């Protein structure tokens, strides 16, 4: 239900409650209900939190608890639980540098609107060019204590390190990184790009978008910004469902996938800036059976200054071509992706027929060279999904020099933290390397053999005692200390060190430096179903001072069984449908139908029923209007409360009240209308319940016309209904009764006679007659008496009878001086003759009643000593009832005066008008 009215009620004139919603709020571990609302003033926004009564309608029902100004550093986000349940409460987190709030809102349109509006407001502040909002208007709402604590922080409302500020800084950083290396990426040859584009249109399009715009990087670097959050919230149901299905599919992955082994070739080669001079087939062939996937890494592709500065090198093409030509001849391969950072390049090929199972390809690079950024050292990485498994491939070149192993460790950690991949969903944070099921990491890791002299090393190599030699390997030691490559595995080294040879030979380095041979080039892996089939170097290749290294892996890949997948998918969709249907708010009603028996004029009848929330979600209910009806119920009916909120398992009592007064009595008596209505109890986002209401109305002289009553010789309730209907619906005869009328009309209604006669007989001496109110219970007795019988005397005090007379006159559908005579009568108020003239044209029974009443009033005035009545008092009391303005016409003071004058003429004289 909308409680914003109550909030608005509590605000100042220029403040505007945009939306209010009920929510739950944790106060010292206790959940309390709050009304949360978004308030706007001069384009500044604040979130107001109120404690409140169950049904807040006015400002007295709520009291302000907290105010959070929406500053530039303020973020609003929906916290999605890991497995969100459709229709469940939503949690909204509001954070700024001075506030942290978590609210729980019921799943409803109000809640959604609150979220949408607040995000919009937040976004607006964020985008605005204006100086920081001042929130001066909020100061009046802040308690003294809050101000005190704020003053320490001095202007907590004026954002210090604004959200925007941080954002800009971050993007600046990113840009700096970008300028040093971005060319390295765009280096990918046109032809290659073409290929990539054709392999995966989606990815290519996204690549194209991201590259030139630093802005997009910004979006990516922060996991949520107000902008994309708002976008996400725009279709909450759609999004929520997507996530649910994704979660469920992941959870049940085993039920629709099976593991299939694929052959991966991994190669790494530091080519020392050389161009290819020999066939790479010996390195790349990888055995008799053709590998399914090739992942080939190079380092030091180009050592020229130009490559370093301009990041453009012909070597990329040359080596790509050489690799392509060296792939296993018995299979055809498709190039999926190339990524290069200066001299570090990674090529990704897959057997043509498998290309369609590769998806979500992303490539990234990270420089760790000079200034920790430049691209002469660093890593390139490709992540992709193969069938249903995720893989990440990293080719790196770590810091050189024997003593620099700590730097190498550092480089590794840098790469781990900085090399991240865009995730598919722009809302989700970037994917780090380690979040993949399988990681293959290789390259010129540059770890050396140390703490042993060169001669000893060469001797061990000659003896092929690699086990002993391995003990001096820095990588082994660092891994044992868990200083680097924690969680990774490396196969046994059964080949001699791959560095450093005299180029073009198998000779160990003969230069002055005479470097100790080292296993610089390595291949490691991380992941469950990885089996290394082969790990070796290739001495026959002599182009570089390094030897290439290769490994064949058999990797278990989760392959989707289409049929089972479809089945699981359908199951999930079905169960979500089911859940959604179960989450439709539902209540049970203690009573479905109501009958109000013997409803009487001006006598309240009340029945109650309870709404019990038996559904799985909290619900808001409201009685709603039917098509083309002005209100949710007929004027004689009310439901209290007519809208509200019922928590799960909670009950709420609704009171139905039937009350017939003068506005509804006439048509009920005439049977033009019945005591019948159907209430629609509407649950927000849920079912509607029809609540039929019916009853019988006991016809009454109250609300009946003078003419109809004149036809009724019996008490109205003894009359057959058809007669009542006939008499009450009969048009008013203009003057005298037509001759063809079936029954003889009474001169005046017997009820008028009884009331007046009673007063005449008993009340002439009554002090304060017509001035003191009667008793309600006595009125009811008098009413029943008039409607059911004709006793000699009426019950109740004189005052009650006097009031009954007034009520009777008030309830007449056509006043004694007919509406049609109203204006004429007022105009003639100056002259008694004209007044008499006006009365003479009334329908007979009206004229009779008028004369009768006037005679009675004149009589009363004779006893003014006792009853304290005077002419003008009586004239104004009776004038307002006998000479009523037609509906919709207002009376001003002069007109009231005229009405009084009109009556006064008659009660001053001693004659009837004929």
């Amino acid at each position, binding site marked *: 239900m909308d409680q914003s009215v109550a909030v608005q009620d509590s605000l100042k004139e220029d403040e505007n409650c945009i939306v209010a919603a009920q929510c739950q709020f944790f106060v010292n571990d206790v959940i309390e209900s709050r009304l949360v609302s978004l308030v706007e003033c001069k384009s500044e926004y604040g979130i107001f939190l109120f404690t409140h009564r169950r049904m807040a309608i006015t400002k007295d029902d709520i009291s302000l608890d907290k105010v959070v100004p929406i500053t530039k550093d303020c973020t609003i986000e929906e916290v999605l639980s890991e497995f969100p349940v459709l229709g469940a409460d939503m949690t909204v987190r509001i954070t700024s540098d001075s506030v942290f709030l978590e609210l729980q809102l019921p799943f409803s349109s109000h809640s959604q609107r609150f979220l949408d509006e607040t995000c919009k407001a937040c976004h607006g502040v964020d985008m605005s060019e204006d100086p920081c909002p001042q929130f001066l208007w909020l100061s009046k709402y802040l308690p003294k204590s809050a101000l005190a604590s704020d003053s320490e922080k001095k202007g907590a409302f004026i954002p210090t390190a604004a959200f925007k500020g941080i954002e800009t800084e971050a993007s600046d950083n990113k840009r700096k990184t970008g300028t040093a290396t971005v060319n390295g990426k765009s280096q990918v040859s046109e032809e*290659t790009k073409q290929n990539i584009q054709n392999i995966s249109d989606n990815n290519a399009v996204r690549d194209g978008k991201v590259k030139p715009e630093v802005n997009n990087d910004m979006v990516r670097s922060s996991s949520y910004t107000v902008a994309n959050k708002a976008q996400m919230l725009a279709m909450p149901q759609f999004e929520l469902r997507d996530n649910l299905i994704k979660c469920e599919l992941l959870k049940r992955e085993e039920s629709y996938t099976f593991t299939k082994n694929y052959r991966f070739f991994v190669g790494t080669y530091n080519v020392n800036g050389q161009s290819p001079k020999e066939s790479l087939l010996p390195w790349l062939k990888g055995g008799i059976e053709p590998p399914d996937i090739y992942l080939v890494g190079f380092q030091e592709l180009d050592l020229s200054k130009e490559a370093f500065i301009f990041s453009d090198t012909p070597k990329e*093409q040359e080596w790509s071509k050489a690799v392509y030509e060296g792939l296993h001849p018995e299979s055809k391969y498709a190039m999926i992706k190339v990524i290069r950072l200066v001299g570090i390049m990674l090529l990704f090929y897959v057997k043509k027929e498998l290309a369609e199972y590769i998806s979500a390809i992303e490539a990234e690079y990270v420089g760790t060279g000079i200034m920790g950024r430049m691209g002469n050292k660093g890593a390139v990485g490709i992540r992709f999904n193969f069938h249903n498994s995720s893989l990440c491939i990293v080719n790196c070149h770590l810091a050189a020099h024997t003593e620099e192993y700590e730097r190498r460790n550092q480089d590794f950690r840098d790469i781990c933290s900085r090399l991240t991949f865009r995730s598919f969903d722009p809302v989700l944070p970037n994917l780090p390397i380690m979040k993949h099921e399988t990681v293959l990491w290789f390259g010129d890791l540059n770890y050396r053999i140390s703490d042993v002299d060169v001669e000893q090393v060469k001797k061990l190599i000659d003896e092929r005692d690699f086990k002993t030699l391995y003990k001096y390997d820095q990588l082994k030691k660092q891994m044992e200390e868990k200083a680097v490559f924690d969680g990774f595995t490396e196969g046994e080294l059964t080949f001699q060190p791959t560095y450093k040879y005299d180029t073009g030979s198998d000779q160990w380095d003969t230069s002055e430096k005479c470097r100790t041979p080292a296993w610089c080039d390595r291949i490691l892996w991380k992941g469950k179903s990885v089996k290394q089939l082969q790990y070796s170097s290739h001495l026959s290749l002599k182009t570089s001072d390094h030897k290439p290294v290769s490994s064949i892996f058999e990797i278990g890949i989760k392959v989707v069984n289409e049929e089972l997948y479809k089945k699981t998918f359908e199951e999930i969709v079905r169960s979500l449908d089911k859940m959604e249907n179960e989450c439709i708010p539902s209540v049970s009603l203690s009573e479905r139908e109501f009958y109000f028996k013997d409803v009487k004029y001006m006598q309240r009848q009340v029945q109650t029923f309870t709404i019990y929330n038996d559904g799985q979600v909290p619900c808001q209910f409201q009685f709603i209007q039917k098509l083309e009806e002005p209100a949710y119920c007929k004027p004689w009916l009310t439901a209290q409360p007519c809208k509200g909120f019922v928590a799960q398992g909670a009950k709420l009592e609704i009171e139905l009240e039937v009350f017939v007064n003068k506005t509804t009595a006439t048509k009920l008596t005439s049977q033009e209308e019945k005591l019948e209505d159907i209430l629609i109890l509407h649950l927000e986002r849920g079912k509607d319940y029809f609540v039929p209401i019916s009853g019988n109305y006991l016809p009454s002289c109250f609300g009946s016309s003078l003419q109809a009553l004149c036809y009724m010789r019996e008490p109205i309730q003894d009359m057959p209904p058809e007669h009542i209907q006939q008499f009450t619906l009969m048009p008013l005869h203009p003057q005298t009764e037509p001759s063809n009328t079936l029954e003889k009309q009474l001169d005046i209604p017997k009820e008028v006679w009884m009331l007046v006669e009673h007063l005449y007989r008993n009340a002439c001496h009554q002090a304060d007659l017509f001035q003191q109110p009667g008793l309600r219970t006595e009125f009811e007795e008098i009413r029943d008496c008039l409607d059911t019988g004709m006793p000699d005397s009426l019950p109740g005090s004189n005052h009650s009878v006097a009031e009954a007379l007034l009520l009777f006159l008030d309830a007449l559908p056509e006043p004694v001086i007919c509406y049609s005579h109203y204006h004429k009568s007022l105009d003639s108020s100056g002259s008694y003759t004209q007044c008499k003239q006006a009365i003479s044209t009334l329908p007979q029974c009206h004229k009779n009643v008028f004369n009768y009443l006037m005679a009675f009033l004149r009589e009363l005035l004779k006893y003014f000593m006792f009853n304290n009545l005077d002419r003008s008092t009586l004239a104004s009391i009776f004038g307002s009832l006998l000479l009523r303005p037609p509906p919709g016409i207002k009376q001003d003071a002069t007109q009231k005066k005229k009405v009084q004058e009109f009556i006064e003429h008659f009660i001053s004289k001693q004659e009837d008008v004929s």
Partner: protein
Amino acid sequence: MATAPYNYSYIFKYIIIGDMGVGKSCLLHQFTEKKFMADCPHTIGVEFGTRIIEVSGQKIKLQIWDTAGQERFRAVTRSYYRGAAGALMVYDITRRSTYNHLSSWLTDARNLTNPNTVIILIGNKADLDAQRDVTYEEAKQFAEENGLLFLEASAKTGENVEDAFLEAAKKIYQNIQDGSLDLNAAESGVQHKPSAPQGGRITNEPQPQREGCGC
């Protein structure tokens, strides 16, 4: 794992109308829960069910409103016709009176929905063939005369229940495709999902591929 367009891209609103006891609620229940409710209480109000279906590879969410059939609620249930993309008009093949009332239901449906609303006539309780009171041919002719889709179904056995909801959805979808249903029009009864970044795939739709480079 890659994301995929798992989700529905349209919401269609349906109403189910027809005399009391013809099996409207049972049809809805059979459709959403695949179960038959042998003793289903009269609907006194409007109930609500949803299910996702697939039409021409598009996922569509049906939002179905089941109305009370009792005559005394007739005036009130009229409020619910607005904005329906599809209307299931149900009669009971074993009770001729429910068939005879169809023209009055049809008048309401035509007057209170928009001209594009797809109306499907359903002769329910087809399992009770022995007690049949309305022939298939007769109803078929009525449907044809009035341009309605028509099916006989059984909420009890489930026969044709899926089809009833699907046929209407197909027709609505077709109307969208050929442009005769304007999605932007108020009360079209169809909501379209705003375009979101399209994901990759989880199923293996073939993707175009290319020979390797550098050759």
